[in-house]
């Protein structure tokens, strides 16, 4: 195993990044107000659909409302953008300093990405869930086990999201602008994660396809565990799949970094 001393720079980096993210508390508060508004609009839309055909629904109204609040709370898990700092590093050529540091580039960017997803998620989700439970019909997990499985799934979702985000940042080393990847990945992720529509509302064939992709573990899997739509046996399988995807994406990212650093043309002078 890796000795503790070797892991230290990465842990320090992680803690520093986390501290930096907690500075944006006012933004988180305003963000929460926005999310409350969106939640209420989405709930009105889904409630109207469920009223039209409750018997055709895979979830009852309370479960649906709870699912929609979970989506709003976990919105910052989504790999929506590449790290603006890293984009500037690549554009201005200062990325060369990153390469000079005696640490693993992939791991240090991964830590940044993890902090960038984890801290805003925690800062937004907790106050939002409190407000939604007290005022807007969000349900608490029915069992302690469901709550624990949800918490585990969120941690795994954040690890997976960080791997996706890092991969998007790494693509900058090859394309410079990142304009395309920055729009196409989020578009697919929004649909395939359950952000736009709970996946169990989709036609069955489509569900089978989306089940193989990693995106559903960002939101749909944690949310289903929370509302009790899936239990411990399915959770174990889902978790195993998340871990495999995360490892695969991380290895691929690390491979790309090594390749890029061998044949990189640094811009700027």
């Amino acid at each position, binding site marked *: 195993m890796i000795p503790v001393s070797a892991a230290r720079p990465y842990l320090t980096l992680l803690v520093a990044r986390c501290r930096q993210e907690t500075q944006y508390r006012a*933004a988180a508060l*305003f*963000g929460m*107000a*926005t999310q409350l*508004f*969106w939640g*209420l*609009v989405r709930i*009105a*839309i*889904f*409630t*109207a*659909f*469920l009223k*039209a*055909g409750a018997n*055709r*629904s895979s979830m009852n109204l309370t479960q649906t409302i709870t699912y929609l609040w979970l989506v709003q709370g976990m919105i910052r898990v989504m790999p929506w953008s590449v790290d603006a700092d890293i984009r500037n590093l690549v554009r201005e050529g200062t990325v060369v300093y990153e390469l000079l540091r005696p640490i693993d580039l992939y791991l240090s960017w991964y830590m940044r990405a993890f902090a960038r997803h984890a801290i805003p998620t925690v800062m937004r989700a907790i106050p939002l869930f409190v407000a939604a439970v007290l005022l807007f019909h969000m349900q608490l997990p029915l069992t302690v086990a469901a709550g624990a499985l949800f918490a585990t799934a969120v941690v795994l979702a954040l690890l997976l999201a960080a791997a996706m985000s890092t991969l998007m940042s790494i693509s900058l080393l090859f394309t410079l*602008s990142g*304009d*395309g990847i*920055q*729009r*196409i990945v*989020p*578009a*697919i992720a*929004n*649909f395939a994660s359950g952000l*736009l*529509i709970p996946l169990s*509302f*989709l*036609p069955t064939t*489509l569900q089978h396809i989306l089940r193989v992709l990693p995106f559903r573990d960002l939101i749909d899997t944690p949310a289903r565990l929370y509302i009790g739509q899936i239990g411990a046996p399915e959770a174990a399988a889902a978790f195993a799949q998340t871990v495999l995807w995360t490892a695969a994406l991380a290895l691929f990212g690390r491979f790309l970094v090594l390749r890029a650093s061998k044949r990189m043309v640094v811009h700027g002078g």
Partner: protein
Amino acid sequence: MKPVTSGMYVYLRLVLACLRSQMQYRASFLMMAFGQFLVTGLEFAAIAALFYRFGSIHGWQLHQVAFLYGVVGSGYALAEGLCRGFDQFSAIIRRGDFDRLLLRPRSTVMQVAAFEVQLMRIGRFLQAAFVLTWALMNLHAEPGTLMAAAAMIIGTMCTFCGLFVLQATLTFFTVETPEIVNVVTYGGVETASFPLTIYPGWLRFTFTWLVPLASTAYLPARLLFKAHGPMSHILILPACGLLFLLASIVIWQFGERHYASTGS
């Protein structure tokens, strides 16, 4: 007074210059336009999936909601394309760029509107236009329906332009645009794409009386599909959007008088 025609001429020249500069990065433009198309396209796929499962919403069928969605989506994309500067106004203020605009002998409204017009918005517009075309085909649209759709798109576009202008006016006082403003712009697109009756009272009030999206989208559509109201009413209602835009410009001019530069 400056002649309006000369103002429009300069606006067109500025817009064309923006477009030419963006076409220098053709691959990037194509990717971004495709990305926009994909984002909203999958959003509509989610709506279609809900209809596939649940059938209807408050008595509205998929093609009727698609009509609303197409009108609102294309109106918004046009507004975003043509009034981009107001949407990005916070950056213009922060860099002190607004001082330069004030020095030029043309209306600031026109100059800001033409600031960094983005051609890639065409992706979103095309997606909404496709949905609208599909809806019109399924509605067996008559010439009247087409005229109504055009009027509704223009009215919706004016309303969103007005919202961008108001959002920018706010920046005269706050410098940063608060994220909460997105609630009426992005939120407006989402809300107005569905029949308004599904929402709680405060939301209906907001998008009827404060932001006239109901008059430019939902109400004319209801007259078309449900109430079979007279065509004159259907065509006159979206004019509320134009009034809203004019009112926003008056407020903008008030805000402009209170502008203090941040530049150095």
